[in-house]
């Protein structure tokens, strides 16, 4: 099965060269040999024809060879018949036979190279094995319906046939009361009510009908399926504690399953919905979408995608088909006809599907649930924006660093980290190992002499001598030649760098043009604007909205950043720190004494109030960190279309009006803003000053928090150069001293504008644009350009789909992003009234075309395979899935009535839950090692009935439960005949008696709740904790943990939700007895039962307690025991003892 990790180690120990070589040899086979064999050989030596008994469509084929022996001797081309044949050396053996099809010299050489290097052939997993090993296995045969004797019950007829063969005598029918109890536990998981116990002997069919019609039925049978579906409400992994462990909408899947059983949803439909509800044309809010929880509720495997997919494949194939397909992850299945190729065909289906952040809502929003919807929407927007931002940055950076990547490849051996990256903590500056790996792959694939880009690469790595003339002849891209000729590189690193620079320049030039065109566009709109947003300037924008809200100028180094900080560690006060990232902001400063340099030209002011010299956070477009308010006079300036600039004291900022004037072509203008106080505390106050070229032109002193806004409106004369704003702490300390400027702007009217200058500027822009467009027009589209496409196509090593962004983030960004994504769930956990949402999957874009991972190791990519169904259960010929990821095709293939496995597997499970023992021993493994069951005919008959009934499970229950077999007694007494039968058939495969069964966890807890009158019958909804003494709903509604499972769940053999459970184990351990003896849960039930028994006489009380707990009247000796006990012990101890009895815990 899975051996990826140890294998990685083994590979790690190999010399790195060898690893690379193995990889390259497979590449070589895929690129040169496979197409050649397909086109020239396989028509006659393939699956359809086998001339000379030789097949060349698999490794096994040429190894076995044909009439004349093995076709290839690995490592020795001259002894290989294949070489002899294709090189036309021998007149008797010329292949292909027609001279006009003869292989080229290059092709023959390729074959020889391939054989010389060991004839590496990844084409294992042949249909040959399937054809021979599996086809005769009983479970793969079509389902056949048996002939039933007229007027006989079909189940009884088939079983009697077997019993007669063995000369076995069945046990008599069970006692009527026992039978009623068996039926209610079977269908409801609950003891019978008084009314049910009163069912007349001839009325059992009516009882079955009424049990099936009750919602309690779905609550019981859903639990059986949830075992198979490895259902849990919890996540697993590190730091999954408390609320963080909760999968808030897991319960919608559980509810879906309960509903499906209660509605008697046809089982084939049940399959389709669970695998592909998104593909069934359902309304967007249909509750059936929750069915896909089957795919999304598994373990998280530390976010290793391959393991998650393996778990999906395992659950679906074992769950529906009874096939252990997961065994084929590393090698062809050892026992069953499942080649590795089949595993990866299914792998491709799930790898092409993703779980979206935005889960569809599948219920109505209540009044209390509204707040959740709003909060969720905002959070999703935040997540998507953040991801987009990261994605663009990562792609740009990766393209920009092409030279570094190529140098890395030229100067280092492959590092294991390049393919096993999930544990790495990357720092932002590090090259991304996955991209390095893909560059290595691309170069390995393309560094062959005839490649127009990387043709010279191999030679150059060995010897940096340039061979310009020979390259020209070989049509190597002239830009590569020119780049190399100009740089005259001397080492592999230098060569790689030149390569990288040439490739990057093709892309970056286009990027520059694009950027410049974009800039022209904004400059043009700037020339027609009437104001400039000063907060936007602080965020690195042009004043017209190109800056990003939240960005800020960092006062120590003048950079523009999205970061924030509390108190800033100021090294230098009273002096201007330039802001090179903005042409409009001259600089910033932190005032401390009365004198400060306020411009890059050295302008100094001397009339400032002295301050502590401390300051909080940065110069920010939007609020500073900490406790702030963003409203002035009731208007929230942090919400578009408003904007605000936050300046926590003590800060000064100078804008360069001449730069503004230049781009705007204006002469005069006005500065306007609404000054507000952003601090939360009323006692805080600030001073605010405006300077024009160092002269104070405006001031507001002692401005208080919550004070009404103060409008600033100042003319800016045509000759003024520097506008300076200063906020100081106004003496009484710094806490909450936060100035906020609402809509700070420089405004101008058309009369402020210099029209001729404006016209001139516009003309200049038009000319520049024209020349850029001309350049762009003369260029090939980057995607067609062989160098441009290296960085821009989807095949580029730098490219990855946006939903994989997370894998490329640095440690800090990763943690932050994951934190953000987790908030989607934490919001959903917090809002208890949130409308239900479905944990769906949808198709990914792009889809994944799977390849075989050799020996299960994702770093060892082998042969491509189509997304398609398993060969063993497919019609011939097998066809690739046609729709998207193929999930619907997969579901249809499983749910097909022609599939020999699906119906058999399901009826076997149903049978098992009625009898305690299945007909087929391993309910999730119908493979070759599971021999044909004794009751094969019965199994087939039931499967046939199921399909014929329209896959209705309830009709199956009726059929089974109405049989004499089901209604047999489990008691064999002291009868020697039965003892003898027990020796011959210890596991009762011939079904001559019923099995006694112990209550499982759910039946037990529900029983205690019911007999003590505590059970609360409410359907559906969020789970409660099993350890919560106030949670009295049925056990199916308890929170299913994955980690730190409550001891009661563990010791009573509940299904382990780590993997699909076919059958629970059944142990009897003292920890169970401890629970019965000492748990507060049982003590409380006992107490309530005792309290409810209110009869005066002890004898009557004993009868009441017997009726409540065991549903029957006590015998005389039991009454005597009870009286004796209760004379000295409390009644609740007595009720407690009855709750612990085998009579209660076992179903006869």
């Amino acid at each position: 099965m899975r051996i990826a990790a140890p294998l990685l180690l083994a590979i790690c120990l190999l010399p790195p060269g060898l690893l690379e070589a193995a990889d390259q040899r497979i590449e070589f086979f895929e690129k040169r040999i496979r197409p050649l064999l397909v086109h020239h050989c396989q028509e006659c030596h393939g699956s359809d024809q086998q001339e000379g008994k030789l097949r060349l469509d698999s490794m096994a084929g040429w190894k076995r060879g044909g009439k004349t022996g093995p076709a290839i001797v690995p490592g020795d081309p001259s002894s290989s018949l294949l070489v002899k044949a294709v090189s036309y050396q021998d007149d008797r053996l010329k292949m292909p036979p027609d001279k006009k099809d003869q292989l080229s010299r290059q092709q023959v050489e390729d074959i020889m190279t391939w054989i010389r290097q060991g004839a590496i052939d990844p084409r294992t997993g042949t249909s040959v094995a399937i054809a021979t090993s599996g086809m005769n296995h009983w479970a793969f045969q079509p389902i056949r319906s048996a002939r039933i004797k007229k007027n006989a019950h079909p189940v009884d007829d088939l079983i009697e046939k077997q019993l007669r063969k063995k000369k076995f005598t069945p046990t008599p029918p069970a006692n009527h009361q026992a039978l009623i109890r068996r039926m209610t536990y079977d269908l409801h998981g609950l003891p019978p009510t008084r009314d049910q116990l009163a069912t007349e002997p001839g009325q059992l069919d009516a009882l079955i009908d009424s049990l099936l019609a009750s919602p309690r039925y779905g609550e019981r049978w859903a639990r059986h399926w949830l075992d198979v579906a490895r259902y849990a409400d919890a996540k697993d992994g590190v730091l999954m504690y408390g609320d963080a462990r909760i999968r808030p909408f897991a319960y919608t899947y559980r509810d879906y399953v309960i509903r499906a059983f209660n509605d008697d949803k046809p089982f084939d439909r049940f399959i389709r919905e669970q695998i592909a509800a998104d593909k069934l044309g359902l309304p967007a809010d249909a509750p059936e979408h929750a069915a896909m929880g089957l795919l999304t509720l598994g373990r998280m495997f530390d976010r290793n995608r391959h393991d998650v997919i393996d778990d999906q494949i395992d659950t679906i194939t074992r769950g529906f088909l009874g096939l252990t397909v997961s065994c084929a992850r590393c090698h062809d299945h050892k026992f069953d006809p499942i080649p590795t190729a089949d595993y990866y065909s299914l792998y491709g289906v799930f790898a092409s599907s993703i779980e979206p952040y935005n889960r569809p809502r599948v219920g109505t929003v209540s009044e209390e649930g509204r707040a959740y919807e709003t909060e969720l929407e905002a959070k999703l927007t935040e997540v998507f924006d953040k991801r987009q931002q990261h994605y663009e940055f990562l792609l740009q950076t990766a393209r920009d660093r092409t030279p570094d990547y190529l140098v890395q490849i030229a100067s280092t051996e492959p590092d294991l980290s390049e393919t096993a990256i999930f544990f790495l903590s990357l720092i932002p500056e590090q090259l991304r190992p996955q991209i390095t790996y893909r560059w290595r792959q691309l170069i390995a694939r393309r560094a062959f002499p005839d490649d127009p880009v990387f043709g010279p690469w191999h030679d150059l790595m060995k010897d940096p001598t340039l061979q310009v003339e020979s390259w020209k002849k070989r049509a190597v891209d002239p830009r590569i030649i020119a780049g190399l000729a100009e740089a005259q590189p001397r080492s592999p690193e230098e060569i790689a760098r030149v390569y990288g620079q040439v490739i990057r320049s093709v892309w970056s030039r286009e990027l520059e043009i694009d950027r410049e065109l974009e800039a022209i566009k904004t400059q043009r709109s700037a020339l027609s604007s009437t104001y400039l947003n000063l907060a936007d300037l602080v965020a690195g924008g042009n004043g017209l909205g190109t800056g990003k809200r939240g960005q800020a100028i960092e006062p120590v180094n003048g950079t523009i950043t999205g970061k924030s900080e509390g108190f800033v560690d100021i090294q230098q006060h009273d002096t201007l720190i330039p802001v090179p990232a903005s042409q409009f902001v001259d600089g910033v400063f932190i005032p401390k004494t009365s004198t400060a340099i306020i411009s890059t030209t050295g302008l100094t002011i001397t009339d400032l109030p002295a301050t502590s010299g401390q300051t909080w956070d940065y110069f920010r477009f939007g609020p500073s960190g900490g406790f702030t308010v963003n409203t002035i006079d009731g208007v929230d300036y942090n919400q578009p279309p408003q904007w605000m600039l936050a300046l926590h004291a003590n800060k000064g900022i100078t804008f360069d009006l001449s730069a503004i004037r230049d781009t705007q072509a204006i002469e005069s203008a006005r500065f306007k803003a609404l000054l507000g106080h952003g601090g939360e505390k009323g006692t805080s106050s600030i001073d605010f000053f405006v300077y024009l070229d160092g002269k104070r032109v405006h001031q507001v002193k002692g401005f208080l928090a919550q004070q009404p806004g103060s409008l600033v409106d100042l003319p800016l004369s045509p000759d003024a150069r520097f506008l300076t704003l200063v906020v100081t702490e106004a003496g009484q300390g710094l806490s909450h001293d936060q100035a906020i400027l609402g809509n700070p702007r420089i405004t101008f009217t058309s009369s402020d504008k210099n029209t001729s200058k404006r016209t001139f500027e516009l003309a200049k822009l038009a000319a520049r644009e024209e020349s850029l467009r001309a350049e762009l027009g003369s260029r090939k589209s980057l995607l067609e350009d062989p160098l441009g496409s290296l960085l821009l196509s989807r095949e580029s090593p730098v490219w990855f789909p946006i939903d994989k962004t997370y894998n490329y983030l640095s440690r800090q960004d990763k943690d932050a992003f994951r934190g953000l994504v987790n908030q989607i769930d934490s919001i959903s956990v917090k809002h208890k009234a949130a409308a239900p949402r479905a944990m769906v999957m949808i198709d990914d874009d792009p889809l994944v075309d799977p390849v075989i991972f050799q020996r299960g190791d994702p770093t060892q990519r082998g042969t491509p395979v189509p997304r398609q169904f398993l060969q063993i259960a497919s019609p011939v010929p097998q066809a690739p899935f046609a729709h998207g990821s193929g999930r619907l095709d997969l579901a249809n293939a499983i749910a097909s009535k022609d599939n020999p496995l699906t119906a058999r597997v399901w009826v076997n499970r149903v049978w098992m839950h009625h009898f305690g023992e299945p007909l087929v021993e391993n309910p999730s493994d119908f493979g070759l090692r599971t021999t044909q069951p004794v009751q094969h005919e019965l199994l087939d008959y039931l499967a046939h009935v199921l399909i014929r009934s329209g896959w209705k499970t309830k009709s199956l229950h009726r059929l089974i439960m109405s049989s004499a077999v089901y209604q047999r007694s489990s008691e064999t007494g002291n009868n020697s005949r039965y003892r003898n039968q027990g020796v011959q058939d210890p596991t009762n495969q011939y079904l001559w008696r019923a099995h006694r069964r112990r209550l499982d966890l759910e039946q037990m807890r529900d029983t205690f709740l019911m007999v003590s009158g505590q059970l609360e019958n409410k359907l559906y909804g969020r789970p409660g904790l099993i350890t919560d003494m106030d949670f009295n709903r049925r056990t199916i509604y308890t929170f299913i943990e994955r980690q730190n499972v409550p001891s009661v769940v563990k010791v009573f053999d509940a299904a382990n939700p780590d993997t699909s459970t076919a059958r629970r184990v059944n142990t009897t351990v003292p920890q169970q007895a401890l629970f019965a003896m000492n748990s507060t849960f049982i003590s409380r039930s006992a107490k309530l039962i005792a309290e409810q028994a209110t009869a005066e006489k002890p004898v009557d009380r004993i009868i009441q307690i017997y009726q409540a707990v065991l549903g029957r009247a006590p015998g005389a000796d039991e009454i005597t025991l009870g009286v004796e006990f209760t004379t000295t012990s409390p009644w609740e101890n007595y009720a407690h003892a009855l709750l612990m009895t085998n009579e209660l815990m076992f179903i006869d």
Partner: protein
Amino acid sequence: MNHSYLLTRRETLQQMGTGIGLLALPSLVDAAPNPLTPKSPHFRPRAKHIIHIYLNGGPSQVDTWDPKPELTRMNGKRLPAGNLTTERETGVALASPFKFRQHGESGLWCSSVFEKTASQHADKICVINSMYANTPNHEQSMRLMNTGDERLSRPSYGSWLTYGLGSENQNLPGYVALCPGLPVADSSNWRSAFLPGIYQGTYLDTRKTNVNELIDNIKNSSISPADQRRQLDLLARLNRKHQEKRLDDPHLEARIQSFELAYRMQMEATDALDISREPKHIQERYGADKVHGRQMLIARRLVERGVRVVQCYHGDVQPWDSHGDIANAHRNLGNEADGPIAALIQDLDQRGLLDETLIICGGEFGRTPAVEIPIGSNAKPTGRDHNHHGFTVWLAGGGIRGGTVYGKTDEFGYQAVEDRVHVHDLHATMLYLMGFDHEKLTYRHAGRDFRLTDVEGRVVHPIIA
């Protein structure tokens, strides 16, 4: 018919064919085999119990048992061969801040961090300096060390051993994990996965000092022991009556017996965990007033009573994870662990239990000889990153050749280079010492036979006496 733990018949028959042989084959009719019945391993075992002192978080080999003078010489300089890839970025060589000395007749090297253990027991200890694992991440490596797989749901070695050996004492769990708090990857460290739940490690939070709180439902606070006895006697009579017509069913009998077992377990389990019953000088020797001494003493009491596997995790989450200030962090951790470990070995030795108890001490991986470069803060580089390329685990007791060193790391202690021992090899060796061929202790699940070492593992014979 004293069989109290039941698998279904089919499972039993199935497991008999593929896995281990049952000591006593029950007759076919009344078979209700006890999954914890003592069973014979494949061959003569060297050890009957394991105490695993788990220094979770990854103790540094170059600061404890693997001295590297070259590292000291290169302190502050770049390592000539470069740094290996670990979880985070690392920088120059960081010399160990601890003094190393040789101990015992064997002259085993050890730093001041484990001074007491080394000075008293060097000649009983075998240090493996050439351990290696797969990834420098806690959760994966914890699971690898405990279950042989990093991410998938596989049974822990303790579960495998309990499955293979059963339990010597039916009144106690066969496998116990002690930890003040929870280690990283919490219950997946002692899970039974696809093995029956009864083989899962019983976890006890040793922060709790009240013995009755350690095991769920061990005591009923509202019924006196005498009343409970009466109640159980009544129960037995009711159950016997119910059984009269159902004599053929071993499950009924098993459940009847389980109440008697549970009644005794209430006593025995609390007794085993109650260290106040130890003489004062023993408590003092262990330092049982603190949690590390207390849990080491509990471990001895459990082993004494027949528990097969006891794990003592050092603490909550990953205490040995000294990314910063390793000098102080490792010193403090050593001060917590060293005395109790020394006391445990001495105590077991005195009681004649050391020969049959295999002691394993180490973490899930080691640490880098190069200093870790802290991410995004002004912290000074004073710690070490995770390092799975080479680390130290030492063993003592049952079947171990004491006073020896096995395997080597390179001159700086970065990577195991000589006689490398993978975690799978350690597992194979542990199973061997307990009497099992690791390739033959198997369990069939989901279509195939599984084993602790998957397709790996080789027994390290030179460390065996």
